[in-house]
């Protein structure tokens, strides 16, 4: 089986850890995250009947200061998930910065964006404007998903899309 490293980056409290908890098969205790700044989880993704991918998901602690992220966690990744909190404009504004940082360390690696916590969003119009803004300002992003760790909306789709992009 093919194994790939996928990283989750994004601002503090955008729900990265929740997204993973919703998704993965296996993970280490959340305690590690606060200790060393990364949490490792594993997920098997059935791409097609014959093709199964094993994702090692590195949930990198969200920091407000982007430069602080340990580059060693990012290096060697085959896919990037950037998570923003759709209810917090600042976290969305930082998505391009996270993407740039990852693209600087990783060459030609596919990335997807998760706009999380959509369950909290009352207005659909608001969401649509965010997505259109991101579509305009992000380069090298495969797809933008509106996700919810709470109700599981688009979570599987998010990882599946990235997995397919990795194997492309």
């Amino acid at each position, binding site marked *: 089986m093919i194994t*790939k490293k996928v990283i989750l980056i994004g601002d503090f409290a955008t729900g990265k850890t929740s997204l993973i908890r919703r998704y993965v098969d296996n993970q280490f205790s959340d305690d*590690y995250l606060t200790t060393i700044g*990364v949490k*490792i989880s594993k997920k098997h993704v059935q791409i097609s009947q014959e093709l199964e991918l094993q994702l090692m998901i590195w949930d990198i602690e969200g920091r407000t200061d982007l430069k602080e992220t340990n580059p*060693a966690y990012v290096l060697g990744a085959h896919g990037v998930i950037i998570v923003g909190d759709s209810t917090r404009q600042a976290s969305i504004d930082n998505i391009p910065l996270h993407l740039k940082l990852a693209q600087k360390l990783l060459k030609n690696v596919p990335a997807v964006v998760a706009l999380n916590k959509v369950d909290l969003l009352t207005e659909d119009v608001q969401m649509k404007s965010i997505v259109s803004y991101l579509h305009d300002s992000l380069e090298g992003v495969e797809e933008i998903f509106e996700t919810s760790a709470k109700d599981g909306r688009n979570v599987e789709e998010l990882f599946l899309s990235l997995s397919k992009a990795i194997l492309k």
Partner: protein
Amino acid sequence: MNDYEKLKQLLFEEERHKIDELELLLKKSIEESTDATTIVEKISPLLSDIFSKTIEQNKAEFIAIFAPLISDMLQSTIQDSSDKIAKVMSPIISLAIKDQVKNEKDDIVDALYPVIGNMISKFVSQSFKEMINEINTKVQSTFSYETLKRKMIAKIKGVSETELLLQSSTKLNKVESVFLIHKESGLLVSERSLENHESIEPEMVASMLSAIRSFVNDWISKNSDSLELNEIEFGNYTIYLEVAGCCYLAVVLSGTSNRALQNKITSVLEFLVKKYSDAIANFEGDKSKLDLDEINKHLDTLLENESEVSAAQKEKQNYTFFWILGVLVFAALSVYFYISYSNQTLQEKIERSLHENPHFNLYDISIDVGYKSVVIAGKLPYESLHQNLLQSIKPFLTRRILEDKIVLAYAPLTVEEINKELAIAFAMLNIDDGNRIRYKLNGNSVTIHGIIKSKKNYDKVLSKISSIEGIRQIISDVEYDFSQNGLKIYYGVSKSKLTQEKMNLLDLWIKSSKVRKTLELYNDLNLLVMGFSDGRGALQKNIYYAQERAKKVYKYLIKKGIPSSRISFIASPTPLAEMVNEKSYEGRLVQIKWIKNDN
């Protein structure tokens, strides 16, 4: 009133009527039947009722009454049937201890601490005793290579033999799992574990270890890139991390890591990196692209179980021993070869220098150059040669001592041998240009004749010849410094006759110039008779006279015994320019000259 009566009173005060009833019943029962068991059967249901009710109502008092009794009861029961008590109590006790430990951990620790100390020391001392016994038997065991080696190492290191044995009896670490991990991505390249020690979620472990490694490296070595996380310890386990450029090995072992194991890990990683560095560096999570079987084979060498490890280690130690032995042997051999080589070269040098002196070639002289001495042996016919030999060898000796085993053998030399000696002596002398010496051996007398340029050379020859054993007499007919003189015979006008006077002159010249001897000794010299005229008058006449003059001298010389093959004549109608002066007769002449023939 004692306790019992008090109890009786307590029990019966309120239920006197019941007891009365009982009494009646008892009496009745006893009347009905004398069988004790039936009585007990009948009373027993009542008794429990009585007790339970009493306890319910007067619990405290009841306890107060029974408490002193219980300890006595227990004591006597334990004395009588301790086994049964133990059986009954054991499940409760373990539960009780567990509970106690859970709730009052610190108290338990404090309480047990002094006892445990003693227990452990007792246990340890017992173990040590056993170990020492084991060691003693080992020490006393028969003489073997191992014991000899241990004794030697103990002597060299200044460590007691027992300590060495302790080291060897200490259990080695056991490698339980090995992870080969892609450094950058933290993806697992391969994981190998001992049987029954299979890792749970090796991929997760690999990633987590990578994260931890990155974290620690980032955290601690902010200013120094070369630092690496090498070991993670927890309890009795150690994770040893060995990092190379593209990947790293994480080795989980029980016990602490030791140098031998670290070296082994390093060498395995080194090998893998050397062989698969590109493949591993480009690892994208697809194991099918790697030669995983080969990699695993190498990783498995780290998992060799304890006995194998110790055997391997033993073997390694043996190898070191053999290495040392090998190096020593090599050193000894090279010293030996150096000495024998230097001996050999010196021997060749001496032999070569002796070869340059042809005299020594005639005799079988053996030269044996050793480390400390040079031995010469063989037979030489006479002392002067012997002394000569010693003088020739002396400059080569340096620090070595000359052992002279030369025997002087005065046995008369054979004619061939003497001839050989003579041939050498004369060949040397005749190398000088101008020396023309021949010798003739007749029995033990040598006749020398010839021409010699200087007296000095001749003396050398004489001393050489006289040093040849077997020669008793030297007859010398040698002449010095021969110069090849020519002769000029002048003629009157139109005269060509060889007069008596002229013949006498030629005779004298032949004799005084040792013409015959010269011809004999100088193969390369021939005689040329040149006839000249004064060039005045008719050319025809001049030619005639020049020819006549030369021809007559030529014929006369042949008549006098000069071989015709060594003499020739030519004629010239005019004299040579050098011959022309005021005296006209000087142009009419015959000149006899020695000429070098070109053959």
